[in-house]
């Protein structure tokens, strides 16, 4: 068997485009799923039973079905539900946000619960509303505690974005696999794909390690 590594250099532009899409997917998904995760965490803690039950059902559903299923579901069902044709990229974002929000909500819920009740009471005793006490006192402390977990989620998400390639989002995985099937340079393209994911992922993993060291120890 002969290899033709030149295919990688010839495809560099396309692969770079794909990598950019992968990064955009990750950033956009995280930007949306972090605040949404906080909202879902609060809904789960709601004293209104139907609200908390609904939020719990959503989280348990998303945590127990494969992401790729959510991706397909978004691709086929979203246009029917909304009557709008989403681009593959947006469909991918919706699917990833649906999945990630569930995980982030669990992360925030444990973070929020780890803050002593007395902290909220100290805010209430000053005359703050429940909302003010949450925003000014609980959330900033919980945030610091969950940052290491969020960082780990980020790196996992970066790799999981490859799952949206099944609905032809032009991300790194999709681009590389496309070139593979057109050029039949299977080993070369898979190797290139691995190398690019690794090169992009490794620094992120190192940053996560640093965050764990800096914020991982609490009080």
């Amino acid at each position, binding site marked *: 068997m002969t290899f033709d590594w030149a295919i990688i250099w010839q495809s560099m532009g396309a692969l770079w485009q794909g990598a950019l899409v992968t990064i955009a997917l990750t950033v956009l998904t995280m930007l949306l799923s972090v605040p949404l995760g906080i909202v879902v965490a609060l809904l789960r803690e709601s004293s209104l039973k139907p609200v908390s039950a609904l939020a719990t059902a959503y989280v348990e559903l998303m945590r127990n079905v494969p992401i790729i299923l959510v991706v397909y579901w978004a691709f086929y069902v979203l246009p029917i539900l909304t009557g709008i044709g989403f681009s593959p990229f947006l469909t991918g974002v919706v699917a990833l946000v649906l999945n990630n929000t569930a995980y982030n909500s669990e992360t925030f819920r444990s973070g929020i619960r780890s803050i*002593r009740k*007395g*902290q909220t*009471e*100290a*805010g*209430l*005793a*000053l*005359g*703050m*509303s*429940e909302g*003010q006490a949450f925003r*000014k*006192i609980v959330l*900033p*402390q919980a945030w*610091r505690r969950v940052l290491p977990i969020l960082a780990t989620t980020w790196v996992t998400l970066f790799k999981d974005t490859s799952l949206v390639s099944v609905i032809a989002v032009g991300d790194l995985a999709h681009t590389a696999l496309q070139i593979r099937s057109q050029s039949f340079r299977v080993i070369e393209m898979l190797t290139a794909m691995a190398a690019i994911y690794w090169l992009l992922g490794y620094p992120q993993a190192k940053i996560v390690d640093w965050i764990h060291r800096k914020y991982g120890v609490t*009080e």
Partner: protein
Amino acid sequence: MTDMPANLPKGSALPEVVIEYRDVRKQYGDFTALAGVNLEVRRGQVVCLIGPSGSGKSTLLRCTNGLETMTSGEVYFDGMPLSKDPRKTRLIRQRMGMVFQNFELFPHKTALGNIMMGPMTVLGLSEEKARARAEALLAKVGLSEKAGNYPANLSGGQQQRVAIARALAMEPEVMLFDEPTSALDPETIGEVLNVMKRLADDGMTMVVVTHEMTFARRVADHVVVFANGQIVEQGPPQQIFDAPETARTRDFLSHLGWDG
């Protein structure tokens, strides 16, 4: 049993009632934390609540600003009943400062930041004005040089003094103290009690749950003894400590090794 502070001469005009507890009851399942408490706190008074652990004194204090809900009864602040309306409760809380056993300083804020939080968030003070107020209060509790310290870098006594300053930053009419020295090392208790003593001397109305009998005797105008969710005796400190009328009070004081 009379609610009148007996140390005031008869016939002189009593200061107005600021806090009134009317038949306050609190039930936790089978456990009765408060079994119908009636009490009045008058403006400028220092009222110390003493008694064994679990006797209901902290629960009563926490009912005062609605951190604890009552099973039945009423608490009036300045004639207004503590209501279920969160807005009215918030307005009442702004006028009552509270100091906790475990300080509950905000660990993500400096000493100064802790004190500025209430005025800025609740009263809408500008950062500049809140800072000026906070600096003055830190000076008052003798901690000006610790303004930039985070709570983790303060001793227990220093943290509690900052917590007192934080409560004072709202310019409250009443201060509630929930065992303010119980979590402190013995050597730092004095600095906190001194700050409280000065506050009392300045005329602040104070309700203090405490195990510090020397403080209660020296600073209180009125001492209330709790047992099993009820007031068993109340009166001026001389009466409570030197000539207790009930066996329950004598029993409690002798357990503390108090010999008058």
